[in-house]
């Protein structure tokens, strides 16, 4: 080795040592960093890794069913047969669809919608091809699955209302969650795509019971969001089934009887308050709302002057007309301003100051006592009696019989009605109460307003011997041991007089609803007709001769009202029927109410006979 080589060698050894040292230092930095990441901050990164891979999926609970009093379904969950397509499993999406079209009709629009979705979505996510298939078609596709690569049959659930429009208002319907719904609660279910909540009726009022509780499934997903496996699962808690007091058959009968008229009918058990029917017509098919109603159908509903979207028995407020006369009679009897046998002469007119009030019977009724006045619905009698007893006492009696009150019936939009007082008029209208106002109130006109439900409650309380029965829609478990409702403290004798009047309405040949009587001894009924004026009859009109209802345009015709109960020997059912613009109560409402009561009692009798047979067997 030469000298210069020696120098080079020494220099080199020194430098190479420095290079090696540098490598060691840098490698130590790597080790330090590894230690920091994997030992010092391990927990933090472990958490982040789990956040990456674990995704929480909500499991929707099954919605509770809505049943009638005998457990027959009014709202249930139906299997919805669907066909999905998973693009990554199809060799050729178009080819698969062409094959599928042999079993399910597919339009050009379906094709373009599906192909668009296939392009947009990740290829392992299902694309909806067809929904709401019938079982036969669905089964057909299932059998042919080997020829349909990528096609995935799927069974979901949708809400189904088997009774369609007959229960539309009462049961309501479900719909998609809206922005405003989201603000109402923290339930994560609300944000689940496709989740439906109650939008009307029982579905809305008892949403908290029907909905149930979400379950969840922890799944491992990859970076694209594809589910790899399920890690753990907590099943959802199905919603509570709701059993109503409603009798499906009665409701169907009532709704069917009213059909296309703008009307309401309520049937109630006068002892325990069970509402057996709460019908409102015309209606709509709640199943349409489920799947999203078309604009055309919606417009039809909104523009129909018979107001199919309104739940008339609880929301509709009407002057009760002559059905209010029982209240006036009781108020007067209890106050002692009129006696049972006292007769008041009706010549068809009643004079108060310089204003004349007319009886519906222009030629007058002659001498009337209380029972006759109810039976023949003499207006003049009640003009006079109302004047004597005064609005305040009438008002108190009305309230005792359940008018002017909300019952909290778990249906939306329950109206309060209106039982006016002197103070009320001054406060709301700024005008003093007039004598004429009392006269009008005496025949249930003027300011008095009641809902058909309230009229049914009133009738029930009249029929059950003056007990404060309260209507109820939810069937309790302790039905039979329910204590009878509290007494209202009305003299039983006075009540008997009013009931006699109501009996005579139906069963006395001069009664206003004699034609609607039931002859069967065991099913005789009592009732009261009412006709409520939609508009005040002007003096000019009266002079030129009052037009009959049939001559007026529909919208100006009177509302027909009837309240009644039966059977007479041991009353059990109260009914109220209101037909908007149905003309007189005797012709427009009494026959309907009669048929409903007859149906109810007939059904009752059959049920008892069957029960008897079972006992004997």
């Amino acid at each position: 080795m030469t000298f210069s080589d020696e120098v080079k060698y020494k220099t080199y050894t020194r430098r190479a040592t420095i290079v090696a040292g540098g490598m060691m230092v840098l490698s130590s930095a790597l080790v330090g960093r590894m230690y920091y990441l994997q030992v010092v901050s391990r927990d933090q990164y472990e958490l982040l890794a789990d956040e990456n891979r674990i995704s929480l999926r909500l499991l929707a609970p099954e919605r509770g069913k809505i049943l009638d009093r005998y457990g027959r379904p009014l709202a249930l969950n139906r299997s919805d047969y669907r066909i999905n397509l998973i693009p990554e499993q199809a060799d050729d999406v178009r080819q698969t669809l062409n094959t599928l079209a042999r079993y399910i009709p597919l339009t050009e629009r379906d094709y373009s919608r599906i192909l668009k979705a296939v392009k947009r979505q990740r290829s392992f996510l299902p694309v909806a091809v067809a929904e709401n298939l019938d079982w036969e078609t669905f089964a057909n596709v299932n059998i042919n699955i080997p020829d349909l690569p990528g096609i995935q049959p799927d069974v979901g659930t949708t809400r189904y209302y088997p009774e369609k429009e007959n229960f539309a208002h009462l049961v309501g319907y479900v719909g998609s969650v809206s922005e405003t719904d989201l603000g109402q609660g923290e339930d994560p279910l609300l944000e689940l795509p496709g989740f439906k909540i109650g939008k009307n009726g029982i579905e809305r009022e008892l949403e908290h019971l029907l909905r149930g509780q979400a379950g969840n499934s922890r799944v491992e997903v990859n970076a694209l969001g594809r589910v790899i496996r399920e890690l753990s699962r907590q099943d959802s808690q199905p919603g509570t089934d709701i059993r109503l007091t409603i009798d499906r058959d009665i409701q169907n009968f009532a709704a069917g009887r009213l059909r296309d008229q703008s009307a309401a009918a309520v049937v109630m058990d006068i002892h325990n308050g069970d509402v057996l029917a709460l019908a409102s017509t015309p209606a709509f098919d709640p199943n349409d709302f489920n799947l999203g109603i078309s604009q055309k159908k919606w417009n039809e509903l909104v523009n129909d002057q018979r107001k199919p979207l309104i739940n008339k028995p609880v929301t509709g407020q009407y002057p009760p007309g002559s059905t209010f006369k029982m209240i006036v009679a009781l108020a007067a009897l209890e106050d002692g301003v009129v006696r049972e046998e006292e007769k008041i002469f009706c010549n068809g007119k009643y004079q108060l100051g310089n204003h004349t009030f007319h009886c519906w019977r222009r030629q007058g009724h002659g001498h009337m006592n209380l029972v006759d006045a109810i039976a023949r619905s003499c207006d003049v009698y009640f003009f006079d009696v109302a004047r004597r007893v005064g609005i305040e006492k009438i008002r108190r009696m009305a309230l005792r019989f359940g008018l002017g009150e909300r019952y909290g019936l778990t249906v939306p939009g329950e109206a309060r009605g209106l039982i006016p007082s002197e103070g009320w008029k001054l406060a709301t209208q700024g005008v003093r109460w007039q004598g004429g106002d009392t006269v009008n109130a005496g025949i249930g006109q003027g300011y008095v307003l009641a809902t058909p439900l309230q009229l049914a409650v009133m009738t029930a309380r009249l029929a059950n011997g003056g007990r404060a029965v309260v209507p109820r829609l939810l069937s309790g478990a302790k039905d039979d041991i329910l204590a009878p409702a509290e007494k209202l403290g009305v003299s039983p004798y006075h009540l008997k007089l009013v009931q006699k009047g109501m009996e005579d309405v139906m069963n006395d040949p001069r009664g206003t609803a004699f034609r609607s009587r039931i002859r069967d001894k065991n099913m005789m009924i009592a009732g009261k007709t009412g006709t409520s004026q939609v508009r005040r009859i002007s003096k000019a009109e009266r002079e030129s001769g009052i037009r009959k209802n049939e001559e007026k345009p529909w919208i100006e015709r009177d509302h027909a009202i009837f309240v009644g109960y039966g059977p007479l020997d041991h009353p059990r059912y109260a009914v109220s029927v209101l037909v908007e613009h149905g003309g007189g109560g005797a012709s427009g409402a009494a026959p309907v109410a009669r048929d409903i009561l007859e149906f109810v009692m007939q059904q009752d009798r059959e049920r008892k006979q069957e029960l008897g047979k079972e006992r004997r067997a």
Partner: protein
Amino acid sequence: MTILSPGHNRGSRPLFQKISEINWLIVLVVVMITGVGIALLYSVAGGSFDPWAKKQLIRFALGLGMMLVIALVDIRIWMFLAYPLYFLSLALLVIVEIKGHTGMGATRWLNLGFMNLQPSEFMKITLILALARYFHCLPPEDTGRYKSLIWPLLLIAMPAFFVVRQPDLGTTLLIAFGGIAVLFAAGMRMWLFVAGIITMIPAAFGAWSFLKPYQKERVLTFLDPERDPLGAGYHIIQSKIAFGSGGLYGKGYMQGTQSQLNFLPEKQTDFIFTVLAEEFGLVGGLTLLLLYLVLLGYAILVSMSVRSHFSRLLALGMAVTLFLYMFINIAMVMGLLPVVGVPLPLVSYGGSAMLTVLVGLGFVMCVAIHKNTMISRGGAFA
């Protein structure tokens, strides 16, 4: 053999003798490192030899053969070929510049019909050969002179210029740092180095304006990965999560959630070390690091024990190249350096880097086998 005659040597030895002088322990370490890589490629493919592990194995077999051939060729032939090979790779770089194959936004490959050649990988080796030869031939009295630095700096600058234009920041860094390391070991004055580093700082700022937007993005993302967690920062965030969640012993082979569920990007190439760290933890990472350090230690010891300057610089240059690959890659996946796209040699899927490192190790072995071969200062032509 006239070419070789000027060297003072004992002439050629029989081939079997050379073979017996191959350090088979080091070959075993190389096989082990590659084995780790193949095991990881099998894991990230979801437990399959396709599409990566099988191909990698075939490439390794070819590369290993090449390594052994290079080791056995007389070192004087390599000295003779140093400049021609350097200029050949420079010419290839120019051809790439003119009509290269573009992939993933960069022009790095030459399509030769049967394979894609990446001349910049070739350059890493031939630059070191050329520099080693240059300093070997430099008269000792010229070592300290500045003018003797002009030629080696030019040798480094020319390829660096073409590679940075491709653009390939990672390879440019590897070429430049590898070359400078040889300069340093050859005895370039220390203060020049210090001065060089000081001038580098403003130069780095100047270079900023030449970077492509995505390169700037990488640097910014490196400085603050959270600034774009779904875009450019995603890689490094996911890689750190995989690392950290691996812990001391890892999640188990084929159990790495980050890599198996595809949260980790580029897991078969640049980020393969992360897969190791996730599935085998700190213990696994340190084991692989140790295997690399064995190779590096061997190369440096070889370079310190040989007699000719050419051999020393060649072995050291190769060691530095291997180290740079390994360091940049591992530091990058742990978030210590910006993501510059440097693979982990012998482990990452891909042929070019594996070939480069195996060829480099072949030269180290060649140096070891010919440690007593004398090479004249005048070089083969003198």
